């Protein structure tokens, strides 16, 4: 059995009477990059802070590097954390900030510490700003100092709480690339909190989707993206459509009936007849002219030009869904069209609860 770098066993957390983490078990392998993804308020930060020791665990246990750390204070855990607000010490220079964990944890001799700090500052390309104070840096530079300060002590686990959310879109993309690079160089076990599914999908080895204090689904990014297991996963993984339909298994191949006379064909044997929820991705919806041979009749409700793509909101009977199309063919708002979705791209994700 290989030892996990971090292991959460049935961890719960209550603030007063309110339970915000409702039993989370998770094993993170050494060197793995795991994202905690979920909507605002689902408990991502709370979970991360419990791993860091900044929040007491109500029940359950947390094991870091084989040591039961459930009751250890933060300074006795071998971790490092990047805060959303960076939390750089304002009275220290960049170099002193990066040196701080080495000094406090008494890691290595003074000259070794110096060398390591220089090394890490080079890695994040901040060598030339080493003697500035945090307030004399841009947001992106501060962010890099925070990352440098976290990796310098080579902790068992690196925790990041939405470290990129204060950056503008372009900077965020380049920082994402740098983080991947950094993870490859250092091989640190990383737990990354975000509410941005694209960020989670592009950065991580594994995505853990949280919903109201529970793990909704976990898996490799491609699995989560292409095979959401629940309606929540499907809708949260973004750009997915969810429709409550009636499955009819007439004449062999089943189909999903949106309205009388308008049914989407499904793959044979994928669901039994009855009410159900289907999901399909925006980019899998194909729009055809109204006089086409196949597809169901629908109407364009709105049309949004996004640059590389066009987003349509389509109505078919009482149903609405979104479609992401390349700008090649164009339909106007209000226009009648036909819609086709490849049967293999539609997933039936259980009975509707309603």
């Amino acid at each position, binding site marked *: 059995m290989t030892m996990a770098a971090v292991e959460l066993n049935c961890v719960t957390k209550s603030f007063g009477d309110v339970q915000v983490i409702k039993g989370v078990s998770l094993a993170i392998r050494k060197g793995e990059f795991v994202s905690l993804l979920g909507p605002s308020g689902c408990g991502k930060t709370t979970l991360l802070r419990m791993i860091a*020791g900044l929040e007491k665990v109500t029940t359950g246990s947390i094991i870091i590097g084989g040591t039961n750390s459930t009751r250890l204070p933060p300074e006795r855990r071998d971790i*490092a954390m990047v805060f959303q607000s960076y939390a750089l*010490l304002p009275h220290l220079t960049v170099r002193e900030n990066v040196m701080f964990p080495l000094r406090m944890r008494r890691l290595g001799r003074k000259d070794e510490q110096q060398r390591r700090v220089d090394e890490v500052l080079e890695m994040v390309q901040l060598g030339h700003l080493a003697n500035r104070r945090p307030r004399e840096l841009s947001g992106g530079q501060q962010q890099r100092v925070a990352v440098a300060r976290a990796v310098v002590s080579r902790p068992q686990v690196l925790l990041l709480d939405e470290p990129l959310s204060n950056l503008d879109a372009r900077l965020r993309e380049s920082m994402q690339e740098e983080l991947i690079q950094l993870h490859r160089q250092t091989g640190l076990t990383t737990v990354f909190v975000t509410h941005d599914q694209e960020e989670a999908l592009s950065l991580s080895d594994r995505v853990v989707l949280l919903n109201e204090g529970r793990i909704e689904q976990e898996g490799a990014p491609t699995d989560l993206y292409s095979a959401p297991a629940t309606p929540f996963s499907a809708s949260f993984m973004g750009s997915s459509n969810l429709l409550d339909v009636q499955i009819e298994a007439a004449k062999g191949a089943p189909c999903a009936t949106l309205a009388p006379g308008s049914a989407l064909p499904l793959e044979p044997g994928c669901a039994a007849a009855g009410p159900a929820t289907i999901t399909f991705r925006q980019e899998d919806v194909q729009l055809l002219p109204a006089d086409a041979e196949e597809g169901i009749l629908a109407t364009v409700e709105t049309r949004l030009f996004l640059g590389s793509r066009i987003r349509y909101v389509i109505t078919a009977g009482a149903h609405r869904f979104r479609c992401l199309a390349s700008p090649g063919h164009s339909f106007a708002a209000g226009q009648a069209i036909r819609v086709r979705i490849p049967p293999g791209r539609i997933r039936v994700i259980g009975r509707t609860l309603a």
Partner: protein
Amino acid sequence: MASHREDWAIAAPGLLLLLLAFLVPVGSILALGVRTEGGEFTPAYVIRFLTEPYYLGISWRTIKLSVVITLVCALVGFPFAYIMARVGPRLRLWLVILITLPLMTSVVVRTFGWMVLLGRGGLVPDIMRSLGLVRRNYTLMHTEVAIVVGMVQILFPFMVLSILGVILRMDPRLEEAARVMGCTFLQSVRRVVLPVATPGIVAGSLLVFTLSASYFITPSLLGGARLPVLAGSIYETATRTQDWPFAAAQSLILFTAVLLLLFPYIRLTRKAGG
């Protein structure tokens, strides 16, 4: 450039008021100290003050007491302000009320209170006697300790409130970051909170020092005639001997000393302000 002129325009009414209500009266009093009756310049009063051992003794006591009072306020005020900043907002409100409430009663009344507590047969000597620390008939009245105790009580809120303001503005994540980087709780207070709160401590110390150097009611009542301080001496000179020019000269010296203290302070805050 234009913005500079606008700054001045905005500040002008305030500056004018300051000029009329503060600088003119204070200036004319201070001028009294360096002028003969005929209106010519003379350093005679200042020289008299600086050469008489009695007045030098008073100055030394004033400085010594002010330093001790400031130190006690800072040493007790910092942990107190830190605790106030870290408790919930309700309890904090109550604590703020608790420490500012004394400000709403007259200083004279509070000082009389201390006289009762510290005097012969008062609560404090009684307790000390029952602990076997002192003999009967022991009194704390007319000692420098009494002055320090009375003054600390009066000036404590100024110190606490100016430190509290800085700590409340500080990002609480800084302490958590320090903990995650290997600091124990006390180390995080010492290495993060203390440096970040320094401007507040300096501002509070300045307030407490200048106020205690220029207070006279409490030191006079608690210290008595044998332990005069500069402000008390100014008051005595002006009211009892009615030697106005000499009282003005003493004020000038107190004023200058406080001003001299301000310059390093401005330097310090400018450095802290980056």
